[in-house]
C-alpha cells in the first residue's frame, strides 16, 4: 500500500474532527482557540495535498494555503485580545461563564 491523496485527506479529516471535538468541549477560551487552529491546519493539509496530487504543475493550492495561514494569524491576534479583555472583566476565561452577550 503506497500512501497517496486519500491518506492525506483522511488524516486531515481526523485532525479536523479532533478540532471540532475540542472546540465543542473545551471550557478554557484559549483551548477553544487552539482547537480552531487545529481545524485551520487540517484544511491546509487538504489544500496542499490536492495541489500536489491533482495539479502538480500549479502551486495555486499553496498560495491559498499561505493566505489561510495569514488569516489564521489575524484571527488569533484578535481572538486572543478578546480573551484577555474577558479575563480582565471576569477574572476567568471559562467560556461557559461568559454570557455577557445574552443581554
Amino acid at each position: 500500500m503506497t500512501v497517496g491523496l486519500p491518506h492525506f485527506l483522511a488524516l486531515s479529516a481526523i485532525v479536523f474532527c479532533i478540532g471540532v471535538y475540542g472546540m465543542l468541549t473545551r471550557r478554557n477560551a484559549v483551548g477553544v482557540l487552539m482547537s480552531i487552529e487545529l481545524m485551520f491546519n487540517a484544511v491546509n493539509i487538504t489544500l496542499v495535498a490536492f495541489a500536489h496530487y491533482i495539479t502538480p504543475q500549479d502551486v495555486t493550492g499553496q498560495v491559498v494555503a499561505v493566505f489561510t495561514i495569514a488569516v489564521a494569524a489575524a484571527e488569533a491576534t484578535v481572538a486572543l485580545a478578546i480573551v484577555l479583555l474577558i479575563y480582565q472583566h471576569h477574572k476567568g476565561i471559562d467560556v461557559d461563564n461568559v454570557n455577557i452577550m445574552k443581554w
Partner: protein
Amino acid sequence: MDTFSLAFFVLAFLIVASAIFVVSSKNIFHSAIFLILALSGVAGLFVMLHAYFLAAAQVLIYVGAISVLMIFAVMLTSRIADKEIRHTNEQVGIGLLISGGLLAVILYSLYNTPFTISDQPIAEGAGMTLGRLLLTKFVLPFEVVSVLLLAALIGAIIIARRDTKTGDSVPPRPIPLPKSLQQAKGESES
C-alpha cells in the same frame, strides 16, 4: 513499506496523538506545547508534499508567532497550579457524537469519491513560482491581506489596550524627592 509511507505514518501518528492531547490535556500549557508539536508535524507533511516554502511559513508563523501568542495568553490568564480544574464542559457526549459523525461522513464520502491523480511531474522551486503568482494572479488578495493584517493589528490593539484604563498599568509617577534634597534643589535653582 517505502520511506515515503513510513515518514507519512510517523508524522500522521505524531499529529493525531498530539492533536488528541491538545483537546484533552487538563493543563492548558501542555495543550499549547502539544499544539506546537502537531503544527510542526503538519510542516513535515508540507515538506513531503513538496511545499517547502509553505513548510517554512508554517513553522515561522504558527510555531514562532501564533503559538508564542497563545502561550503568552495562557501565561496571562492561568496559573501553574490550575491543573485540577475541570477542563471540559457537559457537552463531552454531544461533542464526541458530532465530531465522530462528521468524521464518518467525511471518510465515507472520501471513500466513494474517485480522484483523478495527475501524473505530470511536480513543479519544483516553488518559492519563485509562488512569488510570481502572488504578484500576478493573486495580486488583489495579496494587497487585501495587508489590509486584513492592518485591521487585525488595530483591532487587537484597541481591544487589548483597554486594560490601561482599568489601572493595571498606571504610568509610574515621579518619585518625590526627600524634603532635604528638595530644599537643596530649590536653593541651587534660586
